[in-house]
């Protein structure tokens, strides 16, 4: 389990505990226990609730911090078995223009190819702009590849039908972008689908 997955697990566990104590309280009330006992239970439940709330707040803060470090992404392939694909990390690489060559924005689920884990994705867009900040608000055609599992097929854009990538924000070394149109095909040739996706990418 990586860092962000650990935090998500903690959130789920604390939510579960909170609900369990509330349920115990209802059960006691229904079975007619003494007021003192009920009061004690309610007091304990309140303490637990506060504790849980604090834990959730803490965990959510942790997740936010974690997101700042690794980013995240969520893509959907409508009407397909792959459904939603989420990656626990997302990185943006911006290469400004050199000579005749234009700028390029990459979004990817891994820091380096040799550390690729699945699900995995890669977005490659030729862009106009000297910096990331200049890209905000632009919608550009992009090549996109999504591989939900290591041994399954890959979803990809054909060169003739690139997805449309909108760069919505760049702040605190974090790029936010989304897919606003385009289709993906699957390498086994079985289907194509409309693609959607949201990316919160950090600079590696």
């Amino acid at each position, binding site marked *: 389990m990586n860092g962000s997955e650990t935090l998500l697990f903690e959130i789920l566990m604390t939510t579960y505990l909170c609900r369990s104590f509330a349920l115990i309280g209802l059960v006691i009330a229904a079975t007619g226990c003494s007021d003192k006992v009920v009061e004690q239970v309610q007091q304990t439940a309140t303490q637990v609730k506060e504790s849980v709330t604090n834990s959730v707040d803490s965990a959510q803060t942790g997740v936010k911090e974690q997101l700042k470090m690794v980013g995240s992404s969520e893509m959907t392939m409508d009407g397909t078995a792959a459904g939603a694909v989420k990656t626990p990390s997302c990185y943006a*690489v911006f290469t400004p223009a050199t000579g005749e*060559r234009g700028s*390029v924005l*990459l979004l990817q689920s891994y820091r380096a190819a040799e550390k690729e884990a699945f699900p995995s994705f*890669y977005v490659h867009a030729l862009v106009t702009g000297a910096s990331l900040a200049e890209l905000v608000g632009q919608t550009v055609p992009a090549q996109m590849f999504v591989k939900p599992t290591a041994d399954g097929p*890959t979803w*990809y854009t054909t060169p*003739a039908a690139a997805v449309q990538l909108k760069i919505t924000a760049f702040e605190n070394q974090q790029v936010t972008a989304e897919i606003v149109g385009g289709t993906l095909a699957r*390498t086994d040739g079985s289907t194509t689908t409309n693609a959607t996706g949201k990316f919160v990418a950090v600079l590696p």
Partner: protein
Amino acid sequence: MNASLPQVTFMRTTLQRCGWLLLLVVSASSALANPSDKQPQAALDVHGQQFSPELLDVAQKLADKNRTALEKFDGLVKANKALKIDGVELGTAYVNSLRLRRAADQLIMLGEPAGVDFGFRAGEQSQAAQRYVLTLKAVPQAAQGVGLMRSKASQVAQLRQKQLPKLQKLIERQDWDTAERELHEVLDEIEVFAIFMQADERVSIFAPWQDASRAIALALETNRKAAALKAFDDRIAATKPDLAKLLADVSAAASSLKKADKHAIADKMLTGPELVAHFDAAWQKAQVAAIKTLALEWARSTRTDTAPTASWTQWRADYDKFAASFGPALKALISADAARVSAADAPALYQAYLPAVADLVDHSAGALASTLQPALDELVAKSPELTANVKAYRAITDDLLRWRERIAAEQAQAIAKDFHAAEAKTHAAFQRSGDSTGFFEAEPMKTAKARLTETAAKTLLTGSPKLVGQKIVIADVCALGGASQAGIARFHDRLYARTTLPTAALTEEVAALETQLMVTPVQPPLSLLATRAVRGARRGDLVQCGGAVSGIFLEGHVTRFATLPDAAATLVALGQLPADYVERDQLEQVALRLDVQPSWVQQRYLFFKLPAP
């Protein structure tokens, strides 16, 4: 070339002394091609330039003539008209099958696989002629005719006995060629009729010629073997490339580039990148010559008592050693250039090296990439600006290419499920099983050893229908280049394939790849990987291709490589020699070429499904 002329003259003289052309009426060569599914009766090509073409022509004509005659007899027998078979015509067909055997034996002596096929044909045709003789003998109404033929055989044999003293004199003078010619003339004349005789009668009429026949055969066998070995030695000496000189040339060029940006070679002043292209071409030419040399060693071994011979083993070792040294020598050349060049000139020099190095690496099937990349890195390191640009370019293209390679492979894998591996399907079509003839043993299920055990025609007629039209996958296809649209799947386990590259259909796909790699006419790729991607895509090289088999061609294994043209250098990756088959039946060994009509192609970085025709 001038130096080789006396050798050729000598070879011709030597071989002529040994009676290679004793056979018959030599007429203008007819157009010959290897046997195929469409022309199974065609002859296997020959590799020798001296005598082999003439012998092949003679053998082919005899085989064709006999086939026509035998088909006619077959038709008569099937129509219950055996009595209409002309006895002299049948006897002549039998004699022609014996002549075909002699031509086949001489081709074998010259190291020609075609001789093996004609040997099988001669056996098949003489057996067929004997069968028709038996058929006639079994027909009571033919008894008179058969009796006449036997009488005629005795008469001719008696008449020809007068020539025996003359033949003995020729033997005493050791004029073996004339003696053999005279002997065959006599025996053939008798045999036309003697085929109708009983076995004991035949022994009796041929007995007077037996001693002379043995003496002549023994003497000529010895002489021809020696002459064949001498001819092979001469051909090998004339074919063998000067590998040491090639290595020395690269070293000299590397030394020059330490001090200057050009080096003189072949009367031209060449830059480092031009030198890499020059040595790439020179290496390909040397490798073709090395392969031809190896194939001649295979053929030569059939005239010796061992396989492999010492010279064969030594040649392979010499070439392997050379190939292991030549890549590093070229790396040293680029490194020398990199050490000399200024930071300001490094970018242009790097850009000029990329296409030359990319092509060289592709000719080696990628094997030289790890050897030569460090030299390019040294050149890049000379300029901080170039270092930054290359690093940035690789950051935005290396991984893109990785993903493109991945999806191209996955797309091909998905569609290939409906296609057969070329090796498996070819083995299944041409394996020997039960009474079925074939090129391959039933086990193992591989095509690595293919040999003739019957006539090529019979095997092709049996196996071709099982393979033609089948959907197969061929791999490692290299564009022949030039004006040709052909791609050749590299030789592997006795198989190679030819296909038509759909370069026109791929234009848009290749353009899209170039756009993604940010390549324009004025802005070429900036890494070796991307340069190889673009140049390979433009050439039309394929990782694999699927399609229906549209043709099958059979070739002698020795002949395929002994006649390898320079233009077909890509058949074997640069730095390698074809696998040896270390047995004594080199001439029986064959290779298969499949023609494939593509329905999909996988380049390294793109996949394309062709529209149905």
